[in-house]
């Protein structure tokens, strides 16, 4: 009992701290990639406290709900967007044995199902704001989710087939180094589809500022807006952790898997998060038709090919 309470407290702490770390890293990495310094003053040392200061600023702002908005849905939406990512973190293993808050037998499926629910928050926000730009953004969110959910589930099921289990601890346990080339296509498809589901650049058409201001979040301010931002960064953590666990061997490293498992998981999540930021700086936003084309003409066939390859190798080596 005590053990599970401690684990849940740790998950909650990770949920509160890691998104801020990614956010701060994004400020600094993006700045340096663009030849700037980024935040330098808050907290004295290289602006480390910038996001804490941002949080204080958000908390002080007036809580505004537009008069024409649907009050209940408008207020509920940030919670619906944020909570699913917290739930997914519970089933992600950071190390071998009991180093996971809850080892579900169908962990992969749970994670994918719950992640899809978070998108409803953005759609609710888009509709309830009573703003045509928000509504357009909400529609783009829905269209994007419907296209990218499929290749993501296919890619994840390829790994599950390879490991013969849906449990995340089981998948990492079965993982061998040669799965890297074997599941490479699936890994790329999963990561790209995940980015699109999180609406991260270059897949940020739903919040395209030059066309629809800030999409579904246009009417939000203060703490509720901060919650949406937090959901985005928590989503990055969840996506990177899932990719690391499913495709990169999770807590398996070159040595000391049992003792240093958490370190290997953390390193992989960190490198993938850096990649997410790097992609944002490097690529221009994709147009809506390019988004759909990428999903249906590339990712779905590629993930199906990966499934076929997994099946063939699995039968051949059985």
């Amino acid at each position, binding site marked *: 009992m005590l053990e599970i309470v401690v684990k849940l407290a740790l998950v909650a702490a990770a949920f509160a701290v890691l998104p801020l770390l990614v956010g701060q890293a994004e400020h600094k990495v993006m700045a340096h990639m663009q030849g700037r310094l980024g935040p330098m003053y808050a907290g004295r040392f290289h602006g480390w406290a910038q996001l804490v200061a941002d949080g204080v600023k958000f908390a002080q702002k007036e809580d505004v709900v537009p008069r024409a908005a649907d009050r209940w849905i408008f207020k509920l939406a940030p919670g619906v967007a944020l909570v699913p990512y917290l739930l997914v973190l519970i089933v992600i293993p950071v190390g071998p044995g009991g180093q996971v808050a809850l080892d*579900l037998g169908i962990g992969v*499926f749970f994670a994918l199902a719950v992640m899809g*629910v978070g998108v409803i928050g953005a759609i609710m926000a888009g509709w309830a704001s009573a703003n045509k730009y928000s509504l357009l953004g*909400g529609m783009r969110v*829905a269209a994007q989710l*419907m296209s990218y*959910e499929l290749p993501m589930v296919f890619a994840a099921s390829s790994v599950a087939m390879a490991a013969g289990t849906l449990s995340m601890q089981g998948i990492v346990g079965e993982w061998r180094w040669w799965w890297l080339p074997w599941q490479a296509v699936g890994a790329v498809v999963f990561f790209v589809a995940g980015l699109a589901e999180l609406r991260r650049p270059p897949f940020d058409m739903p919040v395209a500022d030059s066309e629809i201001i800030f999409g579904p979040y246009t009417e939000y301010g203060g703490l509720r807006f901060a919650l949406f931002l937090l959901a985005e960064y928590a989503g990055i953590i969840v996506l990177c952790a899932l990719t690391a666990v499913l495709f990169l061997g999770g807590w398996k490293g070159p040595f000391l898997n049992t003792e240093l498992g958490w370190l290997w998981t953390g390193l992989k999540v960190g490198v993938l998060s850096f990649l997410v930021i790097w992609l944002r700086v490097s690529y221009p936003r994709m147009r809506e038709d390019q988004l759909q084309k990428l999903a249906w003409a590339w990712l779905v066939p590629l993930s199906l090919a990966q499934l076929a390859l997994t099946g063939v190798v699995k039968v051949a080596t059985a």
Partner: protein
Amino acid sequence: MTGQEIVFALLGAVAVGSGIMVVTTRQLVHAALWLVLSFGALAGMYLVLTAEFVAWVQVLIYVGAIVVLLLFGIMLTRAPIGTAPDLDSGNRWIAAAVAVATAALLVTVVVMGFGDAKMPLEAGGGSAEALGSAVFRTWVLPFEVLSVLLLSALVGAIVLSRTDIGGARSRGKGD
């Protein structure tokens, strides 16, 4: 009553209650959102019955895909904030009668079939492994027949939506 039965009954009440809200609310988007709650409660009931795989499929497919599709459709056509007066059809009482009759029929069948018989819940009885071996060993023929049905629906949708491969009548005027 055991704890499980109480949770099951509560979830059932939530599912039925939100289901009623779906058909009685006067706001179109609210109906879709109540549907989320109804599906969620249903998934919770599957979980209580140890059918965990079915529960999360319910969330992934119905909440994550079907409701998103519904919301997309509503937003694409009309998404009024506030009440829509034209949501009630003239057939509402007939529809209510049909719904009550269907529910009564189903409840009668279940009660006559099982009475107050109890089945022990075994952990892992609804796991992916148990379900997979049942579907792909015992029930593989109905499963394949269903997939052919879905395939034909898919092909039908493509034929309906693509004007360039449809009949001569449906060819676009523009080209």
